[in-house]
């Protein structure tokens, strides 16, 4: 590498750092309330533990904290722990998909049980699972149902995920998240994100990574309004560009989560998500 190129790269790196918020700062994405219905018509399970707003994302925040990055997802309902998970929340599970590198180096398919895909320009390199289950439990499930993502380091589970107030947060080491970007820097503020809100299912289907199913009709512990097969997105809420919490983002979410099934329940068109970035 010539001296000129090294200087050029250093300058780009410094420029990237100068453009980034100072260490300890965070970036925040907003999401409108009342859109916790997936592609527009999903309904909550009927059990009383699923209180209104439990799956309604209101904000998502990324905060570098030393050697870690903290991800915080907030919902439109006070978090409760009716199932005794011991971490301040119980019914929710959020997955943070992150594009940390080039689009052609990432995954298009979502994790098992979500029934989503990402567009070719919106692939993900890392997925952080914010679950109230113990890390060991999530990892053991991932070994069966997301083995390749786990093995190549794409799937990450925080050592501890906590719920407080209305927000769920978990931290992951920067070294596990970082991939070298085109600019030669790994900058959480330059990454692109998508957050998928699901429910903590302690007794998942054999092919689901601790996710709760969406069926055509809701049940005591099943979402309704979808399809009884796996052609519909099992997702209640996501971020929609530009993630400022405007009403227009509701329709943008519905558009992303739209899907089509054939008569046998096979997907004709999968829900296709986009990433957001500040």
């Amino acid at each position, binding site marked *: 590498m010539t001296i000129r190129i090294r200087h050029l790269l250093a300058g780009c790196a410094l420029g990237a750092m100068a453009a980034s918020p100072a260490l300890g700062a965070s970036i925040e994405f907003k999401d409108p309330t009342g859109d916790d219905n997936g592609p527009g018509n999903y309904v909550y399970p009927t059990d009383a533990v699923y209180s209104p707003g439990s799956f*309604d994302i209101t904000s998502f925040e990324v905060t570098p904290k030393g050697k870690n990055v903290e991800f915080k997802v907030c919902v*439109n309902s006070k978090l409760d722990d009716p199932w005794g998970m011991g971490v301040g929340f119980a019914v929710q599970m959020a997955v943070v998909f992150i594009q940390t590198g080039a689009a052609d180096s990432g995954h298009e398919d979502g994790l098992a049980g979500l029934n989503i895909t990402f567009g070719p320009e919106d692939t993900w390199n890392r997925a952080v699972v914010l679950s109230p289950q113990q890390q060991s439990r999530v990892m053991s499930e991932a070994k069966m149902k997301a083995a390749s993502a786990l093995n190549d380091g794409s799937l990450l589970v925080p050592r501890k995920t906590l719920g407080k*107030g209305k927000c769920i947060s978990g931290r992951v080491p920067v070294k596990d998240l970082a991939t070298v970007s085109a600019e030669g820097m790994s900058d959480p503020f330059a990454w692109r994100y998508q957050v998928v809100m699901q429910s903590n299912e302690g007794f998942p289907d054999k092919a689901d990574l601790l996710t709760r199913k969406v069926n055509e009709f809701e049940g005591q512990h099943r979402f309704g309004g979808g399809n009884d097969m796996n052609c519909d997105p099992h997702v209640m809420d996501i971020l929609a560009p530009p993630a400022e919490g405007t009403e227009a983002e509701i329709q943008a979410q519905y558009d992303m989560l739209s899907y089509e*099934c054939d008569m046998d329940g096979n997907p004709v068109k999968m829900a296709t998500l986009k990433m957001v970035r500040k």
Partner: protein
Amino acid sequence: MNKKNLALAAAVSAALCAPATTASAGEMEWFGAVYAKFLDGDRRFESALYNNAETTPGEAGGDQGQGIEFELMFRNQVSKQVEISGRLKARFNKNFWTNFGGFGPEENDERSAQYVKMRGVRAVITPGYEWIDSATIGSNDFGMFDAMTQGKYRYIDRDNASGLLFQGSMLGNDLRWDLARVSLPRLFAGPRFVTRGEDDALKLETNDAAYVGQLRWNATPDINTTAIAVYVRDKEVAPDELLNDGNNEDIRDGTDVVTRYDNSVLGLKADYTGLGWLDISASYYHSWYNVDDSTCDGDVNGNCRFSPLLNESANDKSWFVNLDVSDFLVTDLTFNIQGFFIGADYMSVQSARREQDVLLTQGWMNTHQWGRPDYNFGNRENGNATAGLGYGGWDGETQQVVSLMADNDFTDFDEPVAYDVHGYKGITVVPKYTWNDIEFSAEYTYLDYDTNWQACGGQIDNATGQGYRTSCGKYPRNEGIHAWGLGGDWRAPYSMYQDRETQQFGFNMDYVWDIGNGIDLGLRYQFIKDDDDRVKSEAGLVDAYGDGYASGVTNPDWIPNFSQQWGDCTGCDNRKAEYALYGLSVGYQLHPDLYATILYDYWDTDLVDGTIDTAPVGLGFEGSNDFGYAEYLTGDHSKNRIGVVLNYFLSGVEFGAAADWFWGNYDPEFYVNDNGRRAKLRPTGDFVVTPLGNISTDDVDLNQYRLKAFMKVSF
């Protein structure tokens, strides 16, 4: 017939004729679990594969043995509109491996012989009509309602509750309704824990039911309201239908019924989340309870002493207000505040018995909740004391319920405790704050009681015999040790005389020390100050203690002498308790599949429970040391615990283990009436005579070891 309208047709295209699950229509899905448990301990009781079974007649707990159970679940999407499911489960209670597959004297006992029981069978109908979403016929835990009205049944009962449930929605799912008919459990859902009278000829149980209706309206994403109503009726054959009673009625023209009891409850709830930083919720409940006058004999130790419902008709209310504040003035500082009132006479026979929690406070210390304890004599032949889990109590959290049948039977020491909170009124404040990666939380709770009264709110007139014997017949005593000793009164919220106030303080700190895989450090502190002045008048003293506890005292050495033991000393029976807990925990991911936690707890309790002549007012058989459990516990109590908890996960299987080692000391103290005031006694002999036995003046050392390990394979 109108098909259910699917909104946003541009976004969704319905699949036609698709089964409800990934299986093909009509194909049975099979799944289930294998669960094995290993118990060990130094109490050496082996009545069951559960640590605690104190209150179920004919049952008892244990700390020994191994057992395994098999649970097979099935589900079939019969058609697009019909689904069935169910469970086949082996009985586990006494299914010890040493039974060798069921052989032995207890082979015919279904709790021992690995019999498989059908449980949880139901059909779910989704007809696709606009006016109804689904109908569920059969087993149900009824968790879609409310802990104060129709609660979710506890796990053991969850498959034993059955009924009809209809659910629908309107206004684009913003308005949802639920209607249910729940078949009334005949083993506990009525006075004296039955839903029948004493006359077999008049018995009618199988059509007794609770009827529940609920409307939930999500007015906006920020405003939600709920109305819920429950009506329960326990019917019996009308007595005059018997031919031989002189009325000459017969059944050829049908049979009339009478109401043994009925219970109506109305609940209204609302919450608002529109402010962002502040969420507000409130709920109000009112109950009406009517019971036939002939059901109970009115004696505090009579036929309705043990009962999940009041012995007389009554109406009352309860309410809760919650404020949840986020980022109050400072980022990461939250407050949860709850004000509450639970009426002493509030009755809902279908309210939650456990596994739901109506209060924000963490509640009493569960290590002291041994329900039928034996601290004084260590009598291995005391069946009541052997049925429970012993000195260590429970490790799990408190689940506060509003039910006189709060249920902790068939639980193990690592599980939560259900505790009845009838009469509680007060406020709880819980701040939480994160600072430099340290999670802080605290609690302050002030408790007053709607059950503060003298002679249960009745008259006290010794000349006419008015007092607790005439006024307190309304309230079932159950264990009869409310606000006595260290605890354990989790389904006995009523005392004859009470003037009680409680304050709780709590502080917790959690931090992940970033070394290796991260060390989870936890500190906890809890302090409870609990004072009860009990009897407040001289007339009350005569009423409460004047008869020397009637037939409740079995210690021949204790001779009642009211003038000497009580006189006018209204402060002599006062209860003063201070509980303190200091705890430390360290957790570490030893291996990607194995997480371990080590805990150390220290409890320090100072208790003064009246004088040496004080025992629970209305004392009955529980004063005996042969089969009773009212203990003399005044003095200093210190208790230590080392606990180890392991969690190990492999794909498809979970292993867990919890072990505790307790050691502690009880240093008894003694107080007497000294010319109208309570004074500390310095005994010179080896023991002190009390109504509850001759209590040694020496310190008592208590120890307990216990272990529970389990394996769960899900397939």
